[in-house]
């Protein structure tokens, strides 16, 4: 790790860690929702509910927190000043993604730990490793979607807008209610959501079955669209500023 990248990571992590008001609710929220709505699932779906809320945790941290912080940063004079410093702006993005991964890991670990404590799931270590890998992939998509949102929305609009997208996506993706319990019309839409794709990959990880290339493609599609939005938005900001 180069010195500027180390400094960037330290700045990002220290700033976040010293705001317990930010990260404690952020990492606790998915575990709390799991305790209320996921932990009741019994039998076959019990482990899948754990996976669903693990994916939900990824989305919450990656998409929600990221989107909002990017939007706020765009309007922050300090972030402007950082652009006048030497070095690659890429380091700042890497540091952000790494910091995001730290909090994602904690949030996911809490969901999994709670599932085991409540004694409802029986999955092996191999399944957990596979699930962790799915969460890693999902956090890239979620993070890019967050950056796309933050690049388009103003700081004030970012929070309500993120809620407006994030909560329906969680529902549509079958993360709260199992997909088979969704009305058929909703289920049809569900197939195209990134959350459903993340969920399906998570459930495949638990079951140890093959990953459906269709869902991988959906995930890739959302990532590509998000990156395109980010690129266009940044080009537009440069022209208008």
């Amino acid at each position, binding site marked *: 790790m180069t010195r500027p990248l180390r400094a960037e990571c330290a700045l990002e992590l220290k700033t976040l860690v010293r705001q317990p008001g930010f990260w404690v609710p952020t990492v606790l929220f998915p575990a709390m929702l799991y305790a209320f709505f996921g932990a009741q699932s019994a039998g076959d779906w019990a482990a899948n509910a754990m996976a669903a809320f693990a994916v939900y945790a990824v989305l919450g941290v990656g998409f929600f927190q990221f989107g909002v912080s990017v939007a706020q940063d765009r309007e922050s*004079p300090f972030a402007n000043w950082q652009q006048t*410093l030497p070095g690659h702006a890429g380091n700042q993005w890497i540091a952000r993604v790494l910091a995001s991964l730290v909090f994602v890991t904690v949030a996911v670990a809490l969901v999994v730990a709670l599932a085991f404590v409540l004694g409802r799931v029986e999955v092996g270590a191999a399944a957990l490793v596979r699930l962790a890998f799915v969460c890693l992939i999902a956090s890239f998509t979620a993070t890019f979607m967050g950056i796309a949102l933050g690049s388009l929305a103003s700081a004030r609009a970012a929070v309500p807008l993120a809620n407006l997208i994030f909560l329906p996506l969680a529902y549509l993706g079958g993360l709260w209610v199992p997909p088979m319990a969704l009305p058929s019309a909703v289920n049809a839409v569900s197939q195209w959501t990134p959350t459903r794709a993340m969920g399906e990959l998570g459930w495949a990880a638990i079951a140890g079955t093959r990953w459906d290339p269709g869902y991988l493609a959906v995930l890739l599609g959302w990532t590509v669209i998000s990156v395109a939005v980010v690129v266009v938005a940044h080009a537009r900001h440069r022209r208008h500023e």
Partner: protein
Amino acid sequence: MPQARFNDPVRALGLAKRFGTVRAVSRIDLNVAPGEALGLLGPNGAGKSTTLSMLTGLRAPDAGEILIFGHRAGSPQARALTGATPQLVGFPDQLSPREILGYAAARYRVRARIDKLAACFGLERIVDRRVAGFSGGEMRRLALALAFVGEPRLVFLDEPTTGLDGAAQEGFQEVARDFVAKGGSLVLTSHHWDEIEAVCDSITLVDRGETVLEGRIGDIRKRASVSRLTFSLPPETVPPEWMQAVHDGARWHSECADSDKTLRRMVHEALPFHGLTVAPLDLKDVINRIRREETGP
């Protein structure tokens, strides 16, 4: 004026920038030589901040060209050689000055001489405290230290001493003069004319987005070598018409090109003045006078 060179710290020609239908900057030229301190002056809304943001590469000009040491403004090479003060809002206030300065030093890849900087800018007592709760003056001193932390050869300072107490202002002026004496270049905006005189050797005056006056302060003073006579008169007495004196409610003021001649004539005409002082015109008044003469009646 000496010939501008390609790799001068700042060479900006014909800058223009508009925001929607508002023309913030329409024709600004700037040149800064090594070891030169330039004061960028102008009323609010004249285009100073927009100009600074183009010089630091944060905004791209719509027209014109900026070279920083021969590199495009905002290019990696230009950024490595320049330092700038951040604005005072939006600091990550969970961090301490030591941490923020250390971060900036890492971005510049220079050794972090934080204790030395803290001593220069009066940060010793707050260097390990978190920024949250800093006063305006403390934030300003941190912002100044951040402009210098990367050992730059060119520094942009936006309103460097607004909100600083007298001792801190003098401390800053000392650091700035020392920096320039060692070959560094400075561009600063300020509303304090005495500060511009104390630190800068040349000025560029902008108004409504255009450069309206530029030059070395010494030359500008020579162009209008005018003195101001200030004196009191007994009540009911007025100075003669030829002096064109104005009364400010307490004392009379008269501007003249040759103060010796004026004084002799005042004595000759037995004007009963007392408490007389003669002083060179303030830079601000010199500039106003030059601009009046240029735009003319």
